[in-house]
């Protein structure tokens, strides 16, 4: 067992990370006895495992993830949602409503363009995504706005034990819901929404540089004192 790169360094696809029997999670590929990176990302080395967290790329749906999507089309008994994944996600009427409603016209429930907070119930063999939005807090997001960022940067928006999101919420008094797919819904006063939006774009741009929470705090302080 031997490491060829430092922990938390940037690797490019095809770069050798380690030699020997390792448990590897994702972002890596094996060639002969060498573990090589398969994406452009940052290496994380743990006791016996390696993984590469990608810096770029689309959201890949996983079961149990909470996502925010927009309705793009209406089928006889379901809606198709765009959740920034390579595939459209499907939300069936049965999985969408908390109580019985007239389902003869689905457009009366969710229109095209509506923003919906949902949970991924299953990702099928051929990558079809099944959503559910039956229980709270899932459902239609009224008012507010949606900010789109890279799905790979979502952990930075949340921060360690939710520190970043807590900071944003406390300082701007906005309601913020983060989807694992990189869609973030904000509701609050209009100026505050603007500030949160700018802060989130800053996080998206500087996600890989350490000391992010402090910088965001400083930014919020200057913006709020204006």
């Amino acid at each position, binding site marked *: 067992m031997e490491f060829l790169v430092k922990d938390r360094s940037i690797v490019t*696809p095809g770069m050798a990370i380690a030699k020997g029997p390792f448990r590897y999670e994702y972002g890596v590929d094996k060639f002969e006895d060498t573990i090589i990176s398969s994406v452009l990302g940052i290496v994380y080395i743990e006791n016996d495992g390696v993984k590469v967290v990608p810096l770029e790329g689309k959201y890949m749906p996983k079961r149990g993830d909470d996502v925010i999507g927009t309705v793009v089309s209406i089928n006889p008994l379901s809606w198709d949602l765009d959740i920034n994944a390579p595939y459209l996600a499907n939300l069936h009427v049965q999985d969408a409503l908390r109580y019985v409603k007239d389902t003869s016209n689905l457009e009366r429930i969710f229109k095209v363009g509506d923003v919906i907070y949902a949970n991924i119930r299953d990702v099928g063999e051929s990558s079809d995504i099944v959503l559910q939005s039956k229980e709270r807090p899932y459902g239609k997001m009224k008012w507010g706005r949606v900010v789109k960022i890279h799905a790979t940067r979502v952990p930075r928006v949340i921060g360690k034990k939710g520190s970043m999101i807590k900071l944003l919420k406390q300082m701007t008094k906005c309601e913020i819901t983060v989807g694992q797919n990189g869609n973030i819904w904000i509701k609050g006063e209009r100026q505050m929404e603007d500030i949160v939006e700018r802060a989130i774009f800053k996080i998206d741009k500087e996600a890989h540089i350490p000391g992010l929470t402090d910088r965001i705090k400083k930014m919020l302080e200057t913006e709020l004192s204006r």
Partner: protein
Amino acid sequence: MEKDIKFFTNGKRIDGRAIDELRNIKIEVGVFKRADGSSYIEWGGNKIYCAVYGPREAYPRFLQKSDRAILKCRYNMASFAVEERKRPGPSRRGVEIGKVTQGALEPALLLENFPKCMVEVNIEVIQADAGTRCAGITAASVALANAGIPMKELVPACAAGKVDDKIVLDLCKEEDNYGQADLPLALLPRRNEFSLLQMDGDLSEEQLEEALDLGRKGCLEVYEIQKEALKKKYVKEDVSNE
């Protein structure tokens, strides 16, 4: 054909390079905002933009593969890219280069992670100066990495050729037009396999071996430049914030 062109003076080539020397290569990453991944390459006089979209749902539907994504490559040359005006739009040559680019890149990508999807690669040649297909593949590979598409490794490409009965690396315009052979190569560095091998002109068996070795060396040099370009994008941002 011009006959009295002098390819070598004092062991140097027309543009002052040594036999095994590449032209200057500069790669920029992430130049387009709307594309999922993009790159810009300057390789000698070549100026090429590359944009990657995907993985996204494959259209037309009948092209979808249920177990993997498909790769679509498009190569286009601007009408002002060459000396005489090129008729705009798809051409026989453009379609062929798109096809070989796809063949060169596909073995390096992990497309089986995205069933029913497609990945689109668009290569736009703004200025051409010999060796655009190699420069295009090099740029496309970087753009694919920038788009976050999982791959086995980057694909560097480079040409070798024969001029005045001598094997040279990375032909320039005159050498390409009036030389004896042109051999564009794309390499999978870790596997040490070629994913693109075309030949224009004629080479003997020994000369081909020699050209392949020289081309491989050139590709590995290009590979280092590709890696540097990808890393630089993130490191540069680091500095600007401190």
